[in-house]
């Protein structure tokens, strides 16, 4: 009797294997990467974890000085990590006015407890920014559409860590997952412009970024106008580096229509026009 049961079980296993094999193959081949397995296993919850890991990178950027869910945070404030990688120059920055999320201690227990966790607002600097990278990588792995993870990691890799190759590789991974992202193209162009000083390739990438931005604008997708200004600004810088004055003038005239510092830019345009009008020696 037991023999027949064993044979029956074997047949059942074989039948199940034929059914499951195709499912597993489909699971592995979807997207052609290990990320597809994560998608299949975690679903949309991976986005939640991706945000958490990005927040973890931000906490590391502040060396552990970071608000918990119990601490007050100003509504609508962007993380320092994003701001730093998008706009501001590198270096140590103390934001005493921002350090107030702790407030004054309410009692002796809280006052005494502050000896045992970080209470000073500092930023990583001098190459220690590398410590954030594992969390940014994990964030991007979990949610390949988390653009900030690619942009922030790339910014630090190409600036203070001086690793443009790694930055480019990571950005290209991001570009494969987000082929219409003008933000990633802008960052990739910067790798070529500032780290490789390859203005020809950089210009082509910036032009592609501009094209993507315009396409999204035409489709009423509300792309970030500040990013458009940055793209045009980088194109003007490339023109300047290439010494192509006519092209620079044309690009500056486009830039002035969206720029916030219109007066300064207009002044530069007048200077450039005067330079072009002057007779060549």
């Amino acid at each position, binding site marked *: 009797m037991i023999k027949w049961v064993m044979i029956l079980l074997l047949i059942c296993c074989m039948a199940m294997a034929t059914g499951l094999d195709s499912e597993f193959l489909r699971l592995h081949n979807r997207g052609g990467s290990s990320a597809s397995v994560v998608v299949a296993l975690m679903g949309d919850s991976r986005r939640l974890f991706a945000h958490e890991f990005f927040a973890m990178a931000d906490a*590391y950027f502040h*060396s*552990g000085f970071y608000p*918990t869910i*119990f*601490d007050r945070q100003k509504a609508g404030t962007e993380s320092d990590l994003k701001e730093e990688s998008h706009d501001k120059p590198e270096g140590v920055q103390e934001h005493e006015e921002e350090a107030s999320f702790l407030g004054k201690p*309410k*009692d002796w*227990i*809280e006052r*005494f*407890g502050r*000896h*045992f*966790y*970080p209470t000073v607002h500092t930023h990583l600097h001098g190459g220690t920014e*590398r*410590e954030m*990278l*594992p*969390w940014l*990588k994990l964030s991007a792995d979990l949610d390949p559409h988390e653009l900030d993870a690619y942009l922030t*990691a790339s910014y630090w*890799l190409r600036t203070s*860590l001086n*690793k443009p190759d*790694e930055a480019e590789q*990571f950005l290209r991974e991001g570009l494969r997952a987000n082929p219409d992202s003008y933000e990633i193209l802008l960052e990739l162009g910067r790798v070529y412009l500032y780290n490789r000083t390859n203005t020809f390739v950089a210009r082509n990438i910036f032009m592609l970024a501009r094209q993507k931005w315009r396409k999204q604008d035409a489709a009423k997708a509300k792309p970030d106008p500040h990013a458009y200004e940055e793209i045009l600004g980088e194109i003007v810088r490339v023109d300047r580096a290439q010494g192509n004055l006519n092209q620079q003038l044309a690009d500056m005239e486009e830039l002035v229509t969206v720029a916030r510092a219109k007066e300064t830019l207009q002044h530069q345009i007048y200077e450039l026009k005067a330079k072009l009008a002057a007779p060549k020696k």
Partner: protein
Amino acid sequence: MSSSISWVTSRNPDAGNVFAIAGVVIKEMYRRKDFYVLLALVVVITLMLASVGIFNDDRIVRYLKDGCLLLIWLSSLVIAITTAARQIPAERESRTIFPLLAKPVGRGEFVVGKFLGCWVACGFALVAFYFFFGMVSASREHTLPLLAYFQAMWLHWMCLAIVIALVLLGSVIFTAPSSNATICFIIVLGIMFASGHLNSVAVQMHGFRGGLVYAIYYAIPHLEWYDVRELIIHNWGLIDWLAWAGATIYAGLYSGLLLGCAWLVFQRRTVTL
């Protein structure tokens, strides 16, 4: 079959008895496999984390320290809670508690001996864990801040003293060690996660409820003080020695209070099978 002892001692406590009971607990600890398995798990998981290549940079270390310390904390809590939770029920089940208490060993000596054994055994485990952590950290950072690590390990050990005393109190209240361990685990994790913020919650509540939450905030042991992982991971340097000493005294007082409660409850309990 059921037997009972309703013997109450009025003699002075004997340190020899306490150390003898503690010695048995320590021997039991190194004969069991729990610690070795957890140490091996910590080592394997940490080495796996270390083997992950991140942007070809082998100087990235903080995520590794973070992971390793988290595993050490979890492992130490598991060791402390499970070891302490089974002490008194195991003596009762194997009936060794009857000759022990009839020897005569006072109930206070019995409780203190069990506490001391568990605490010292956890201390040995912590030394092994932190030694490994120091090696991992030094291999990447090329520095070994011994004093900072000593402070962290000491505070960790002090935290475990409170936890063990709490579990021993639980083991004379709850009948099953599993339920005691589970309840204590939830209480300890809850305190570590939220106790430091209860005052913020209390000020947002008004009247009696706010007062009640504030009373709980003052009454519960502040285990979160002893978790200085953030300072160690991000190399914040040494903790103020006065604060360190204050936390040590607080842990001593709280452990004493919980052990006293455990002794009082145990004193009034009729030990039966």
